[in-house]
C-alpha cells in the first residue's frame, strides 16, 4: 500500500464576482490529479509559476481544503478531516516553506519556534521539549545547540534560518514532509548544503518527501520521481532520470529544452513554444496545452487526455504521445 494515494484531487478557488456578474468564476488551481507516493520516496512536483504545484503540496498536508477528490494516507481518507482528527493527522506531516525570512516569527526565539509544534501537539514536559529542540538543532548541523537555542531569527543567516525551518519540521518526528521551494531563496554555495542535508535526513529517518520546485536541475538532484504540472493538470510522471532522458509529453520536452546548462560547451537544442501559459480561470475543455502544441489534433481540443501508464512507471497525459 502506498503511503499516500491521491485520487482525482481538485481545488477550485472562487473569484469574487462584481455586483452584476451572474456567472461565478473559478481558478482551476489543481484539477483531477491522481498519483501515489511510496514510503521513503522523494517525489517532485515541478512546473512553471501558476501551474498548481504549491496548491497541490498544500492540499497534501491539508493546509487548504480540497474541492473534490480523495487523499488516502495509509489507507485512511484525510481529504475532509476536521477538528481533532485533522490535528491527529498533522502529527505525521510537516511543511517547509520557501522563504526562511518570512516563515519564522521574528518575535519567537529559536526555542519557541521549534517547540511550537510540540506545544500544539502536547508532547513532553518543558524540560523534555528543550532536549528535543536541542536534538533537532544537532540534526540540522547547528552545533552546538546552546549557541542557537535562545537567539532570534534576525541574528541568523538565510541558510541557518532554513535549517531552523527544517528542524521545526523534524521535531515531532513526522513521516511525511512537503518542502515548497526550500532552496530558491538561498545562495548557491549555501543551497547545496541544505539539499545534501535534506537528502541525508530523508535516508536517516526514512522520511517521505514531496518537493515542490520550478528548478528541474534541483528536482533531478533531490527526487526519485518527478511529476510535471501544467495549468492545474499533471501532464507527465516518471522516475527522474527516465523523465529527463525520455520525455513523452510535448510540454515536458519544451520545458526540459529550456533549462540552461552550467557548461559553456553544451549546445542545447531548443524547442520553441508559441503563445503563453493560459489563465487557469474557467479553462476551455480539452488538453490545456493544445493551443501551444505543434502536434495538436482535433481530439486534443475536445477531450481531456487522461494520465496513463505508457511504459513501466512512466505516466503521460497526451493523445499524441510518442
Amino acid at each position, binding site marked *: 500500500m502506498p503511503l499516500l494515494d491521491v485520487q482525482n484531487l481538485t481545488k477550485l478557488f472562487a473569484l469574487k464576482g462584481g455586483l452584476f456578474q451572474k456567472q461565478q468564476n473559478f481558478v482551476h488551481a489543481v484539477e483531477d490529479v491522481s498519483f501515489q507516493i511510496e514510503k521513503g520516496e522523494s517525489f517532485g512536483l515541478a512546473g512553471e509559476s501558476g501551474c498548481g504545484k504549491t496548491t497541490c503540496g498544500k492540499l497534501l498536508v491539508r493546509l487548504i481544503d480540497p474541492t473534490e477528490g480523495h487523499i488516502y494516507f495509509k489507507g485512511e481518507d484525510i481529504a475532509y478531516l476536521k477538528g481533532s482528527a485533522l490535528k491527529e493527522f498533522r502529527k505525521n506531516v510537516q511543511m517547509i516553506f520557501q522563504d526562511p525570512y518570512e516563515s519564522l516569527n521574528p518575535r519567537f526565539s529559536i526555542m519557541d519556534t521549534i517547540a511550537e509544534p510540540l506545544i500544539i501537539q502536547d508532547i513532553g514536559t518543558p524540560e523534555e521539549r528543550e532536549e528535543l529542540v536541542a536534538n533537532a538543532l544537532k540534526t540540522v548541523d547547528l552545533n552546538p545547540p546552546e549557541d542557537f537555542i535562545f537567539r532570534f531569527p534576525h541574528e541568523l543567516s538565510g541558510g541557518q534560518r532554513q535549517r531552523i525551518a527544517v528542524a521545526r519540521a523534524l521535531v515531532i518526528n513526522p513521516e511525511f514532509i512537503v518542502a515548497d521551494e526550500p532552496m530558491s531563496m538561498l545562495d548557491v*554555495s549555501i543551497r547545496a*548544503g541544505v539539499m545534501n542535508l535534506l537528502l541525508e535526513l530523508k535516508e536517516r529517518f526514512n522520511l517521505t518527501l514531496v518537493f515542490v520546485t*520550478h528548478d528541474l536541475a534541483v528536482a533531478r538532484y533531490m527526487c526519485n520521481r518527478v511529476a510535471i504540472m501544467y495549468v492545474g493538470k499533471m501532464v507527465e510522471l516518471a522516475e527522474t532520470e527516465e523523465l*529527463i532522458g525520455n520525455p513523452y509529453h510535448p510540454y515536458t520536452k519544451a520545458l526540459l529544452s529550456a*533549462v*540552461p*546548462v*552550467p557548461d*559553456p*560547451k553544451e549546445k542545447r537544442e531548443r524547442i520553441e513554444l508559441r503563445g503563453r501559459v493560459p489563465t487557469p480561470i474557467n479553462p476551455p475543455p480539452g488538453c490545456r496545452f493544445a493551443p501551444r502544441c505543434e502536434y495538436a489534433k482535433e481530439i486534443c481540443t475536445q477531450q481531456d487526455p487522461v494520465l496513463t501508464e505508457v511504459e513501466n512507471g512512466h505516466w503521460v497525459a497526451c493523445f499524441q504521445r510518442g
Partner: protein
Amino acid sequence: MKILEVNNLRMYFSTKKGDVKAVEGVSLEIGKGESVGLVGESGCGKTSIGISILKLLPDNGRILDGEILFKGEDLVPKSEDEMRAVRWNGISMIFQAAMNALNPVYKVGDQIVEAIMIHEDVTKEEAHERVARLYELVGMSPERAENFPHEYSGGMKQRAIIAMALACDPDMIIADEPTTALDVIVQDSIIKEIKKIQAKLNMTMMYISHDISVIAETCERIAVMYAGNVVEYADSVTLFASPLHPYTHGLLSSFPSIKGPLKKLTPIPGEPPNLLNPPTGCRFHTRCPYAQRLCKEEVPVFKEFKERHYAACHYAGELSLR
C-alpha cells in the same frame, strides 16, 4: 580593442555601523563586442560594479579609488552633467526587476519615446518610428507599443525594457539579472533574443547574474566575484574546464545540472562574510579548504596566470582542483 577598462576600483557604502566595503580593488577589461558575465552570490558586489560604472550610486555610496575608462576616457571624475551624455548613448543598463518599474499609466511606447527625446534631438514622429523598429528588433509587433504595461506578460515587459536600453544606440549594455524573475521557458526566449541582438549589433554586453548556468550560455568571458573582489576572470570554456581559484571551483561543484551524469554536490563550508568587517588577507580564506597562513595575512594580487586568464589566489595553479 578595449571598450571598458576598470582599474583598481574601490567603492564603499557608508552606514551607521561603518563602511560596507562593497567593491575592493576590482580590475576588469572588456573588448568591443564581447559579452562578459559577472557572477557571484548575493552581496558580492556585482550590482555595485554595474552602478559604479554608470555612477548611479545612492547617496551613501562613494568611489574611493580607481579608474573606469570607457573608450579611453575616465568616468570617475566626470560631473553629473557629463555622465548624462554617457548614460543611454554610451552605456545603458537593464536594471534588476526593471520590468516592474514601467509606469502603469503611460503607454509603453510613449515611455520609450520620452527616453529617446530626452537624450537626442529628434522629433516625436522620428522617435515613434524608432520605437517601432526597436520592437521588431526584440521580437514584438510594433502595434504593442500602444499598449499599457498591464496588457503585457512578464516576458513582453522584459523585451520592452531591452528595447528601451537599445533606444539611443549605446555601445555597451549592462544587464543586471535580466531574466531572474521569469519562468524558465520565457527566460530561455529572452536569452535567445539578447544573444541574437548582440550578434546583430555587435553589442558589448556585461551580464550580471547569480546563476552560472545562465552566464555559461550567454557569455564568452566570465568574471567570478566573491565578497567585493573579482577572484577569477577567464573565457567561459577555460573557467569551467580548469578553474584556478578555489571559490570558482566550489561554485561550480555546488551547482546541479540537468545534463550529464548525476554527481554529488559539494557545498562550500560556512557563509559569505559581512562586508562591514571582511576577513583579512584573502577574503575567501575563512571558507577555503586550501587556506594557509599566508592567505590570512596577505591580500593576493589579481594577476594574469595564462593568457587572459586572471586569478587572485596565492596558490593558483599549484592546487589540484577537480
